């Protein structure tokens, strides 16, 4: 399990100025690049939830989690188990569709991927699709031949399946679990 993998961290933080910068700078300071980042408030407007994806091995991911827990505005940090979590990302693609043939084929691809067409102009179509990377890569690969004018992604957001929530992963619990090491 100790290999470089893309890992998702969910982080609850105070919804205050400078907190995102504090969190993201911690990654660069420790020499890690953030692969994907999504931030938004939760049902409590004073608390934001950050989903960060980082390429790291398990040991270093745990060290990063500990460093995150050290930041005062951080309430809780949870490393999401990929098998037990749902990850989604919204991707918007503006595609060249000047000819009616191109237009039809793009609409077909969109239907297959359950992407919606959210904007039309005489020469372009804009698709919106929700999914994981593999789905995003597949649709991008298919519409590439028509010419992608612009592409934007929201960054991955993730939640655990079932009844588990991040609220059980308080910092003290994280510390407690970490303290239970075995020789």
């Amino acid at each position, binding site marked *: 399990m100790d290999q470089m993998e893309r890992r998702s961290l969910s982080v609850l933080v105070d919804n205050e100025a400078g907190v995102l910068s504090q969190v993201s700078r911690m990654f660069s300071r420790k020499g890690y690049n953030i692969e994907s980042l999504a931030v938004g408030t939760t049902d409590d407007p004073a608390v934001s939830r950050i989903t960060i994806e980082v390429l790291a091995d398990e040991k270093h991911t745990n060290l990063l989690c500990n460093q995150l827990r050290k930041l005062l505005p951080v309430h809780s940090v949870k490393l999401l188990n990929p098998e037990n979590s749902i990850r989604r990302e919204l991707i918007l693609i503006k595609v060249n569709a000047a000819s009616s043939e191109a237009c039809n084929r793009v609409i077909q691809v969109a239907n297959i991927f359950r992407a919606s067409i959210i904007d039309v102009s005489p020469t372009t179509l804009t698709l919106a699709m929700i999914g994981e990377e593999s789905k995003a890569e597949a649709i991008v690969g298919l519409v590439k031949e028509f010419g992608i004018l612009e592409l934007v992604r929201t960054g991955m957001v993730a939640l655990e399946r079932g009844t588990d929530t991040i609220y059980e992963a308080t910092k003290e619990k994280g*510390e407690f679990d970490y303290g239970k090491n075995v*020789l």
Partner: protein
Amino acid sequence: MQMTGAKILMECLLEQGVDTVFGYPGGTILNVYDELFNYGDKIRHILTAHEQGASHAADGYARSTGKVGVCFATSGPGCTNLTTGIATAYMDSSPVVFVTCNVSENLIGKDSFQEVDITGITMPITKCNYMVRDVNQLADIVREAFAIARGGRPGPVLIDIVKNVTAETAEFTPLPREEHASEGRLGALIKRASHDLKLPEPDRGDVEKLADMIRESKKPLLICGGGVVRSRAHREFLKLAEKIDSPVAITVMGAGGFRGRNPLTTGMIGMHGSQASNMAVDSCDLLVAVGCRFSDRVALDPKTFAAQAKIVQIDIDRSEINKNVQTDHHIIGDAKRVLELLDGMLEKQDHTPWKDYVFSFKTETEYDQGGSTLTPKQISDVIARVCPQDTIVATDVGQHQMWVAQHFHYDYPGQLLTSGGFGTMGFGLGAAIGAKVGNPDKTVIHVTGDGSFRMNCNELATEQYYHLPIITFIYNNQTLGMVRQWQTLIYNGHYSQTTLDRGPDFVKLAEAYGLGGKRVCTVAELEAAVKEALASGRGYVIDCAIEMDEMVRPMVPGGGRITQFLVD
């Protein structure tokens, strides 16, 4: 009661028991200094020559007294001048609250005169920092800042207050320090993350396991790290070491956590560690590191470090566990509490054969006697002989720092003030000033090199003005000795930009500042000078001539196995 922000700040400092502040005034912090004028009988302000000096002084004050140091500076260059001091305090976990003022709210973000984003700049070198833009939050934030600086693993905190907040008024309700944790921001923070502020109670099972490991061990080794000093756990550490009859290696930051004269001491560990310490690390079967983060100067090569041993780390900061060296077991908690618990679980042990092996190696390097100049060992011997035993030693960074760490014997935490983590040349004089202000009854000396001293010798003015009888010893080798040593050993003797064959005349410099000065070349001259300096009751600079090619020995190159001595 309605009060201005500046007055609220003063009241909050009094709540924290602050009676001494180091700092330097300026445009945006004028309101605070205006109020300080009225509080002059309760809060003593030490005006330094430069903000950096103030930052080191507050740090030295904190390290030597165990209290939280406080430092003021103005916006812009005032606060950027603090940054080296903040980083120094951060790397060595020293509790200091820095208070800076920024330009007024209406000027923020306009690149106004002396405006800088100091909270952004100091983000990676503070435990946390605040920008106060609402006077109603000021008291709450100051209370939180002090609790954080001192709580858990201590460290620096910065509060940046915009100028108009210091003039605006708000309702201030005095609150005794014990009640701070039950209200406001601090109350909320404690509720959700008490371990950041309180001392985490070590897990009994974890400690029991360590006790078992110690019982099974035939060749144990203890490392006394900076955490022992910060938590003032020296008594508990001594008790444990004697009970389990284990040799003790001391890190630079751990100096004073274990008595340097104790027969169990193997001396310093790491790059310039003694043969006994480094050989013991290499052959022990159990290594218990207390409050030590295995920096690259201690665990030079993490892979071969204590390869035959089970490594146990005791640290208050969980993010230090397994960061540099992979451990076999760890305990999260305050050193004092863990050692107390551990002591109760163990019975007396005897490790005579193991100790005989360890102490067959040298615990201290022997130097040749110098010709026309002094040797580092001679200087430390004279200082140790003539100065009182409880003398506080502040150092700068370089060869002299290592010599002083190796050859002096420290008896209590806070006796050696040195920038171990950040390696800040120019730290010593400011730190010595802070230490003398905080410990007026103790002798304070400042040990430096000619390179380091030249960096911040402007603080001699502070020393003179406040009548602080600090004795500065310059190990003057006319070069940046430590860099030269590397150039000799690793860089083919290319002495690129390290030779300091230039002024000033340090004796004349001291005299210009109104202090005493002496240049010495022999033991007799040195001894006479130290006696004269002690008797004079004023600041003194003793310029000690040493050989340019004198080396810190032993030395293990960075990244190497701890027993691969480049020089013995």
